């Protein structure tokens, strides 16, 4: 089963169970009998990758085809990487233990900008050339999907093809096209031409990017008959799309080691900072019956004892109470508990608390995002202090003693007053706990505020704004610490240097590719792990290439400027983004999609209105 070299490596590393495969639910096939082999690569460690729902969905869909075999590949941790290099073991897929070069397609999921150089590390461990132009037909086709494809231009030169949008229907189409091309023996160029005709398939080499003398983009010109604009792929009816019910159950703990049921996709809220809120428009729900059945099947098939109802905003599901009622019929007797990770503070009702805590009570987490009403209006996070107050009172009355709050700093138009507002909000919640006459005896309250640095992202109304500078963010962090006066409040904040790099790559262009290769050569990979993040090496590399990072991160992008992602369309019009940006500056809010359509353009993807507006879905 294991080659001697692999056995030797496994004997010398921490948690070898990450590198063996064989978990319940994983799919083994006879490689002689399959026509297409797909390596699904997650550019981070096993524990992170095995938490990712998208991989579970696509793994199940691809492996349902008898003659296709989808396998998993993760980035080995430093000790294993060193052993593999020492023993000359190429990066392999967990199921067959075959190297990536044995596959027809190697697909990476792009979830996070700081995983980009880990992709290079994985290609390097496989002996695969980085640049697409250096790979002929003898190499696997290297493709990418996931949210960061919305502007993965810094990686464009490395990939043969990228997939915009939702993969459930698109990826099988892509695989079928590749299988057919393989049978016909067509060359790579012809295969890419065929792929470029599939909705959402973007072949970067078919687009030429030219630049103005000042560094801004002059034009993006399609070649080879490729479309001028690539439109994302979308699932029109979520109720016709079966949910995955056969997760691979990791044997060593993944970060999210539980059953996950995706209740809805997209989000109606339109928070102006939130990239996912724009990329996954319009919001589409699954019905209660389908969700309940999927959750039940999934628990039966995996043995999981916790189900998480997953989405960008689970409490916006119009039938959430029905879903919970149905699930509460079987969950207690089967020892299954439920968690709702993405709740809105403004529609968190008493019965919701009751229905989710029949088995176990955990902490409450909310995301007000900004400390003052003015700034919350700027970012269109439509919640008020009264709503926060109501929810926390409810929770405290119910016996909760810890609240975690997420905020951002560096938001457009932010002042020190807004920073003080974060501390004041937390303090008011502490006071609320002590004002509650029914508070649990002898217990104290813990309010944790976690503050991230805002990163302006493509395809959002804030794509135009510069990121706050590191100096300013550091000053704001210090100001926040000084504004907190209670030991009941704990403050966590993020390192601004990772957010800065994230901003550079999020809004970056093709000129960053050689920088990434050089930084990787200096040991920059697994950048999202603090012990692997080498900011100085990154900055040194940018300097060597004469790249001004502020051009990408800290520059205002003109409202009519051609951006690196101008040719990539997610259904939301440029005019809408501009309109929203202007409203933000006036601190004017926009109503949620299910209350009033604000004309973003995404309804065209469905070919009709997104909602029946007679229904009053939002409380």
């Amino acid at each position, binding site marked *: *089963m*294991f080659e*001697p070299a692999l*056995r*030797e490596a*496994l*004997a*010398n590393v921490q*948690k*070898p*169970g990450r*590198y*063996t*495969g*064989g*978990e*319940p639910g*994983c799919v*083994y096939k006879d490689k002689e009998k399959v026509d297409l082999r797909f390596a699904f690569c997650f550019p981070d460690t096993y524990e992170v990758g095995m938490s990712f729902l998208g991989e579970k969905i696509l793994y199940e869909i691809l492996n349902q085809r008898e003659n296709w075999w989808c396998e998993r590949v993760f980035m080995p941790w430093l000790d294993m990487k060193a052993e593999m290099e020492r023993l000359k073991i190429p990066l392999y897929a967990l199921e067959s233990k075959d190297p990536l070069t044995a596959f027809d397609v190697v697909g990476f999921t792009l979830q996070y900008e700081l995983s980009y150089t880990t992709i290079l590390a994985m290609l390097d461990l496989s002996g695969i050339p980085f640049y697409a132009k250096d790979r002929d037909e003898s190499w696997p086709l290297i493709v990418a999907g996931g949210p960061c494809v919305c502007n993965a231009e810094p990686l464009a030169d490395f990939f043969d093809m990228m997939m915009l949008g939702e993969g459930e229907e698109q990826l099988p189409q892509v695989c079928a096209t590749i299988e057919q091309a393989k049978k016909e023996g067509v060359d790579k160029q012809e295969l890419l031409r065929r792929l470029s005709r599939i909705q959402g398939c973007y072949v970067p080499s078919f687009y030429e990017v030219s630049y103005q003398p000042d560094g801004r983009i002059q034009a993006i010109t399609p070649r080879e008959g490729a479309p001028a604009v690539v439109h994302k792929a979308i699932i029109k009816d979520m109720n016709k799309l079966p949910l995955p019910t056969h997760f691979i*159950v990791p*044997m*060593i*703990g993944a970060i999210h080691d539980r059953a996950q049921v995706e209740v809805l996709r997209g989000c109606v809220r339109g928070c102006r900072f939130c990239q996912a809120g724009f990329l996954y428009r319009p919001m589409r729900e699954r019905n209660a019956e389908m969700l309940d059945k999927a959750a039940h099947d999934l628990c*039966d*098939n*995996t*043995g*999981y*004892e916790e189900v998480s109802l997953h989405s960008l905003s689970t409490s916006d599901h119009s039938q959430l109470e029905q879903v919970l009622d149905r699930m509460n019929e079987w969950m207690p007797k089967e*020892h299954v508990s439920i968690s709702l990770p993405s709740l809105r503070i403004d529609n968190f009702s008493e019965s919701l608390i009751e229905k989710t805590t029949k088995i*176990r009570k955990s902490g409450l987490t909310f995301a007000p995002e900004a400390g003052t009403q003015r700034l919350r209006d700027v970012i269109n996070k439509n919640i008020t202090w009264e709503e926060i107050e109501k929810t926390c009172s409810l929770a405290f009355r119910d016996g909760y003693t810890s609240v975690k709050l997420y905020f951002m700093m560096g938001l457009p138009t932010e002042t020190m007053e807004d920073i003080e507002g974060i501390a004041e909000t937390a303090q008011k919640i502490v006071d609320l706990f002590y004002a509650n006459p029914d508070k649990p005896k002898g217990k104290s309250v813990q309010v944790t505020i976690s503050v991230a640095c805002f990163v302006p992202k493509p395809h959002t109304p804030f794509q135009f704004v510069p990121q706050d500078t590191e100096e300013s963010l550091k000053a704001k962090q210090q100001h926040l610490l000084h504004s907190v006066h209670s030991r009941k409040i704990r403050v966590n904040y993020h390192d601004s240097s990772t957010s800065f790099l994230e901003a550079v790559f999020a809004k970056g262009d093709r000129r960053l590719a050689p920088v990434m290769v050089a930084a990787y050569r200096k040991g920059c990979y697994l950048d999202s792990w603090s012990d692997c993040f080498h900011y100085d090496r990154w900055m040194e590399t940018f300097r060597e290439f004469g790249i001004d990072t502020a051009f990408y991160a800290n520059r205002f992008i003109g409202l009519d400027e051609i951006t690196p992602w101008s040719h990539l369309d997610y259904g939301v019009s440029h005019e809408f983004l501009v309109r929203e940006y202007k409203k933000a500056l006036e601190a004017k809010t926009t109503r949620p999609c299910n209350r009033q359509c604000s004309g973003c353009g995404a309804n065209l993807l469905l070919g009709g209105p997104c909602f029946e507006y007679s229904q009053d879905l939002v409380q």
Partner: protein
Amino acid sequence: MNTVRIWFSKRGEASYISLLDLQRVMGRAIKRSGVPAWYTQGFNPHIYLTFACPLPLGQESLVESVDFKTEEEHPDYEAWAEDLRRVMPAGILVNRLCPAAHKAEEIAWSRYQVHYPAGMAARAAEQYNALPQALVEKKSKRGVKTLDLKQYIPEIQVQKEGDQDCFELLLPAGVSFTVNPALLTGFFEKEYGLKSSDAHILRTQLLNEKMEKFE
């Protein structure tokens, strides 16, 4: 309440599942199988599992056991074994289910087979057999102790088995005192340059004080 013992082999991929992880893997497998296991009644209900004699990471075994409780008065061992076989990860093979006859604390000895690629172990064993003593460091929670392997393994008889060298070991394996066969393969590596990772260690039997089979 009945205590049911699952006898299973732990091989291949499964030899890299640690005890802590194995508890979770088994708990979920039993739940998936639908076998009516008893849950603890506390704040955090879970299937109560007892592993008789945990195996070190990377070693294989034919005789692992784990106990669970059930309120079923007449367990159908055959049918339950079949249900469990359907849900196990690669490398965990359910051999049989039976009532837990002996207590786990009664285990005193364990038998192992050690395989090396052909030609590697014979010469090392010869040298080992000629030694007056073979001192190794045994690490435990209470600290590091020096132990003379010759006390427990006076002599090694190597046999050729196809393209492999093979020998058997009988070592103390109990609650109070255990000698890990990896101490010997570690000694072979340090003294004679045989890579530990080339050694396949397979546990083949568990015995009590009186050298009777643990059931």
